[in-house]
């Protein structure tokens, strides 16, 4: 019996060892404990859309796995793109507890630099051979002030005319020839608009919807917002006044209140284009990914934004940059992560997973996703010639004032040339003040 007991014990031991050894990997996710030897990198970010936010977390994990000496911690900071949150960053910098990296909307970089929030990255970039020609020019310009580089461009997009091929067919229009001039656009819009009991049930086009900012139309009408030589904004440019007048005219013609009601009716959804109640729309290239995910059935095409002259087609781009706030000690560590995100594996992952573009030309053109999707390909090729908002300290102010002017005109509360003159003076005065301050410093 003793012998038997011995056998049993041995057997049980063997079985236990084997079972423990064969335990499945319950969690492939590693818990990244921050060891004292690791350099922690805190990153502030905020994007609209939980998908992108989630991908950024995955990017941090990717970076941490590949770089055992560093540990990136992503912190979602609510609404970093508004002035209020910029204040938050300033407080953190002044208080001596800045994040190591900020993913910042590039049009805010000027304002942030003006408040002394970011470090000069020129030397780090030179050391790592990061040069202007690697990125789209506008993105590099957004990030450079007084010949100094303050951020490495991260992502970007372009504005396009989206049009619904199905609705074009129904209205007897050729689904393969979208409008190319403003006049054509108006004609098509009229044909594609339907009313029932005095209310719109389908609209051809709403110029100010989605990415139809005054910025878009000003450029499309042939205007310019900034004069490099005089370093002054030119918001009261004739063509911009024309554009704003056109918006006012359109609002009047179709009845602003009726359009607003059409877009906010309780029985309709939130995206009139995706729900095929609006035949055309100016939208960012990111919509391509959104529609692929949520509205895979939608039969649409993308085209250049129509212009007045039926030529000199334009688009413009925005996007985020990666900056290091002042007071960050381990600049090199932070810069490692910035490189990973802007020109490294992180950038490739970002393009493939979010279908956003990055500012690195090479990564965009080599992305499999862009190669495979015609709409993406069309969009990415526009990036080289894309306009961008003037990279000035008053970038944020300019943006907000243009929106203010637009809403006033749409509501028939202002006259375009008057309000644009007003804004122009206001911003140029501010430029003068800031210029004096820079010189004094």
């Amino acid at each position, binding site marked *: 019996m003793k012998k038997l007991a011995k056998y049993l014990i041995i057997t049980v031991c*063997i079985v236990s060892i084997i079972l423990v050894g064969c335990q499945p990997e319950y969690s492939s996710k590693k818990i990244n404990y921050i060891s004292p030897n690791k350099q922690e990198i805190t990153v502030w970010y905020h994007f609209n859309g939980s998908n992108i936010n989630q991908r950024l977390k995955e990017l941090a994990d990717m970076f941490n796995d590949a770089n055992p000496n560093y540990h990136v911690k992503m912190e979602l900071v609510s609404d970093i793109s508004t002035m209020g949150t910029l204040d938050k960053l300033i407080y953190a910098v002044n208080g001596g507890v800045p994040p190591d990296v900020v993913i910042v909307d590039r049009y805010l970089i000027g304002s942030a630099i003006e408040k002394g929030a970011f470090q000069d990255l020129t030397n780090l970039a030179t050391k790592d051979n990061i040069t202007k020609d690697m990125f789209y020019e506008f993105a590099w310009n957004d990030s450079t002030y007084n010949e100094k580089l303050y951020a490495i461009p991260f992502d970007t997009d372009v504005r396009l005319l989206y049009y619904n091929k199905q609705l074009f067919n129904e209205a007897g229009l050729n689904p393969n020839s979208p409008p190319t001039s403003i006049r054509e656009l108006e004609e098509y819009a009229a044909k594609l608009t339907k009313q029932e009991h005095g209310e719109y049930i389908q609209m051809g086009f709403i110029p100010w919807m989605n990415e139809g900012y005054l910025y878009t139309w000003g450029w499309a009408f042939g205007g310019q917002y900034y004069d490099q030589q005089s370093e002054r904004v030119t918001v009261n440019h004739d063509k911009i006044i024309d554009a704003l007048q056109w918006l006012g005219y359109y609002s009047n013609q179709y009845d602003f*209140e009726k359009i*607003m009601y059409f877009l906010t009716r309780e029985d309709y959804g939130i995206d009139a284009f995706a729900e095929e109640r609006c035949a055309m729309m100016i939208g960012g290239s990111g919509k391509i990914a959104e529609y692929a995910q949520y509205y895979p059935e939608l039969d649409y095409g993308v085209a250049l934004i129509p212009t007045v002259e039926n030529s000199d087609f334009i688009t413009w781009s925005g996007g985020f940059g990666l900056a290091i706030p002042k007071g960050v000690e381990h600049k090199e560590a932070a810069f490692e992560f910035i490189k990973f995100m802007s020109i490294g594996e992180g950038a490739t992952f970002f393009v493939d997973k979010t279908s956003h573009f990055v500012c690195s030309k090479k990564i965009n053109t080599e992305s499999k996703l862009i190669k495979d999707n015609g709409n993406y390909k069309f969009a990415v090729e526009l990036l080289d010639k894309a306009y961008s908002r003037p990279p000035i300290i008053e970038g944020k102010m300019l943006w907000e004032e243009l929106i203010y002017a637009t809403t006033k005109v749409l509501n028939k509360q202002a006259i375009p040339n008057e309000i644009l003159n007003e804004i122009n003076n206001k911003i140029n005065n501010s430029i003068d003040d800031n210029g004096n301050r820079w010189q004094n410093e």
Partner: protein
Amino acid sequence: MVIGGKMNKTNKGISIKIQLIVFFLIVMMIPTLLINIGMYGLASKTLKERKANDILYSLSRSKERLDTFLKDIDYKLIALGLDIQNLNIDHDYEKLLYEITRIKKLNPNIESINVFLDEENRIISSSETQKEVLVKESKYYNWLEAPIYMEKENSGWLQTKYFNNNYNIPKRVFFIKKKIEDFGQIAIFINETTLRYNYMDNPINENELNTFLIDEHGKILSNKDISMIGKYMDNVYMDKGVTKEEDWYIKNLNGEKMLMIYTTSSYTNWTYMSMIPMKNVLLDKREVYRIILLINAISLPITIFLAILFSKRIYQPIGELKGAMKEVEKGNLNVQVYTCRKDEFNILYHGFNRMINRIKKLIQELYHEKLLHKEAELQNLQAQINPHFLYNTLDTIHWMARLNKMEEVSYLTFSLSNFYKLRLGDGKKYTTIGETMELVREFLNIKRIKYGEDFAIEINIQEDLNEVTILKFIIQPIVENAMYHGIEKKKGANKILINVLSISNYIIFKIEDDGLGIEEEKLKILKKLLNDMENENNVEGKYSALLNIQKRVKLKYGVNCGLNIESQYNKGTKVTLKLPKTNIKI
């Protein structure tokens, strides 16, 4: 034959060893499988309940946080209404605008605060770019058209679409509004996205969990898939059971089992519903099967090993017993099996050993009996010297003696002839007591001629005993002994008394003589020899007649029967033979 054949067929070729191994394998594998299945079921149930409760807890927290937030906004709106009335700022637009902008700035979650002035058909808004809007038709403004609820019937919170500052992208907003008499309406708007990010997003299971905020009519108010918002929750999702304040259930959606968890706010009547695929809750089935397979693959060789081990423990002693049995079959009765085990095999082994010993003894006894019988037969045959010739001769002598008037010779010859006829008989092993007594009489008749008339014999026998059968040659040798060793060796001795009695179930033969008797020493030896049948010390061959009788009687009738001798030297001997009163079948 048929039944036996069938049975043989079933077990043919399958040794008990294999049967035991197979049996143990089944016995060991079935519980393993059952345990595996049972544990999987138990784990699934526990996991499911735990997950559901975790999610429910998290949902309830979200609900409470959101309710608190919404109530707070509600109070702010009430306070604003009181301010408007009390501070008389209802016509001071600058002051009013300042007030609503201040409230908005203090709470970053507020999208906008709007005031509608009845008289002027004007909206004053906290919006940075759109502070005043003239309303042409109020029907174009969802929030103005919305009903005003009394506090008791509804929290007053509704969802609508609303434009942001830029008028470019409509947003979904939650709003609550109040009516102020002789003034207009006030409303606070909260962005759906803000609400979702700050109050509904579940940091746990961020990716796998899909959470919906649904109003009392089943309309989706909030979800991470923005295209779902505004749609009505299909009845497929909603269970009839969604009547409780909170619960969870399992629903089959598009062929996929989903764990549905919900909790309803008593403030807004909105239901928070989360769904998660069961496959994310439970262990991966393929993984489980893989583990079960692995466990079985590991336990199979162990089970076989153990089964062989166990069966060996049972088979080995059986095998030994089998071997011993074969030896016995060959005729070797000296086989003995030994074990140090204390279980049933010990008993079995001992039983086997005892049985073999007993068989051995029985065989020996039978052998001896046969041998003794043969010996007696031989003696008998020796006496048979052409008996017919002897009878004829004796008859001739008898008749010649009678013719010559030689009475004694005639009588003697006749008796002798009878004696031999009786004695030799027809070769049977058994005889009756009557015949035996007849033989004894003839014998004594012959002897009486030798000793004359003063030789007395007395035979007393119960009548009913005459027909009882007994072994042959057990009484007459005793009488012969009494004659040769007793009476003939003492002068004046002339008496033999034979009593045949029936005492209870026994027949007692008493043969007494008044002859020489046996010396004390010799009697002791004789008694010892008679009582110790196993002892073969009687090398001298003395008393062989008595010992022969004793052996045969004890072999035939058992140890309770047999001879007993009492004797006194010079006085006589008394031999008692005890036999059972049962007829031996002839």
